[in-house]
């Protein structure tokens, strides 16, 4: 089966309908295990106390804010290069989810920053570049909402998404390039992770759980968008018939 075989929306709808209950089940189990590990197994930090638990939702949100953008960038390539009919549905549906995750990453980071750094917000490279990412998500949504024709909106959005990809490495490496208040990368780094295993395991479980949550939202949103487009097409056919 090649990727293009899933281009048929009807086949996609039936396949996703079959898969969704399983993915939802996996997500629920992962969250149950994840929250158990976070609240009952993971130790409190010797400096930060219990506030360190914010990390287990803050870090997955931040990872997913970038992951979601990369999903959109891949979909944008699919739209422009292969003209895959589901790619623009995927890109359009990922944008609001990405915006929500980015907002939650900023909000949880802010809540964590107040007790730890003593301030809600600093104009630090990592924080600023994530804020720019959030604004770009909103800009993409605004562009999609402004152009009426879905095909043209998809192409315009795809070009803007690809141009905005420049921001992703800046976010990823901002903590290494500039000397920032935000701590440098501690999980994925050369020379191994510097985070204790007792905290790393719950963090990774939560990250996988949130990724599955993204998958659930994304599939559901794509199904809705396909149905919405069908309704639009049916209405237009009906309007043409009445004439």
């Amino acid at each position, binding site marked *: 089966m090649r990727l293009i075989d899933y281009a048929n929306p009807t086949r996609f709808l039936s396949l996703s309908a079959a898969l969704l209950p399983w993915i939802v089940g996996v997500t629920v189990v992962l969250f149950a295990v994840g929250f158990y590990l976070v609240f009952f197994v993971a130790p409190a930090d010797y400096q930060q106390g219990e506030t360190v638990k914010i990390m287990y939702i803050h870090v997955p949100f931040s990872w997913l804010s970038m992951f979601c953008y990369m999903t959109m960038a891949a979909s944008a390539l699919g739209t422009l290069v292969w003209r895959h009919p589901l790619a623009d549905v995927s890109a359009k549906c990922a944008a609001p989810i990405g915006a929500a995750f980015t907002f939650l990453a900023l909000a949880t980071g802010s809540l964590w920053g107040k007790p730890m750094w003593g301030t809600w917000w600093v104009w630090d490279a990592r924080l600023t570049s994530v804020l*720019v990412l959030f*604004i*770009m998500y909103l*800009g993409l949504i*605004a562009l999609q909402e*402004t152009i009426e024709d879905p095909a043209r909106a998809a192409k*315009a959005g795809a*070009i803007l998404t690809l*141009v905005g990809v420049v921001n992703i490495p800046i976010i990823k490496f901002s903590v290494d390039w500039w000397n920032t208040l935000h701590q440098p990368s501690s999980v994925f780094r050369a020379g191994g992770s510097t985070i204790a295993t007792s905290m790393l395991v719950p963090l990774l479980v939560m990250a996988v759980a949130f990724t599955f949550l993204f998958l659930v939202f994304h599939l559901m949103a794509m199904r809705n968008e396909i149905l919405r487009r069908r309704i639009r097409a049916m209405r237009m056919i009906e309007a043409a018939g009445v004439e």
Partner: protein
Amino acid sequence: MSALTSLFVREMRLATRVGGGALMGALFFLIVVTVVPFGVGPDLNLLARIGPAILWIGALLATLLSLDRLFQADRDDGGLDLVLMGETPLELVVLVKCLAHWTATGLPLVIASPLLAIFMNMEPVAIGATTLTLLVGTPALTFVGAIGAALTVSLRRGGLLLAILVLPLTVPVMIFGVSAATAAVQEPVPFATPFTILAALGLFAMVLGPIAGAAALRHAGD
């Protein structure tokens, strides 16, 4: 005369004649800079310190404001379709249009900036540095802005959306432009480091802007 040269001449003529509004950007720039002391108060030391930032923000807003007509006028009169069907590569057409647009609206901003810097009570070194960063940085703003102008070409009121789309992308240019301008005055920081990065961003935008802009224009048609 080659097609691209005549396009440049045409753009310049359109910009400088009645209805072109080439100097409107410079006038807006003057007003933005004039409004700031009313907002923050006429403290000359404060103005000298934030002067480079004010000039940069003013130049950014003035550039954005003039960009929405970059391709729209051509689309309205059908010229864009001719260009799309012509043999000249669309990327080069966008590049030349950007260069002409910058010469008509960006260059006056650069020329006006030393005068406005005096209003801001800036030192001669800071004035020179800010003008130089604007000279290198405003083309980058035009090229990045061309992407937004091409994306919103078919929209009736695309001006505000254009600003929303383009402003996040101009943040790096802004950061290095202002930091180079302030580095010239503050001792320990070297001027050359942020300035060369600013120049690199300008060259990068010069490649990215026409390619992405041309892609957007091609898709706006169908």
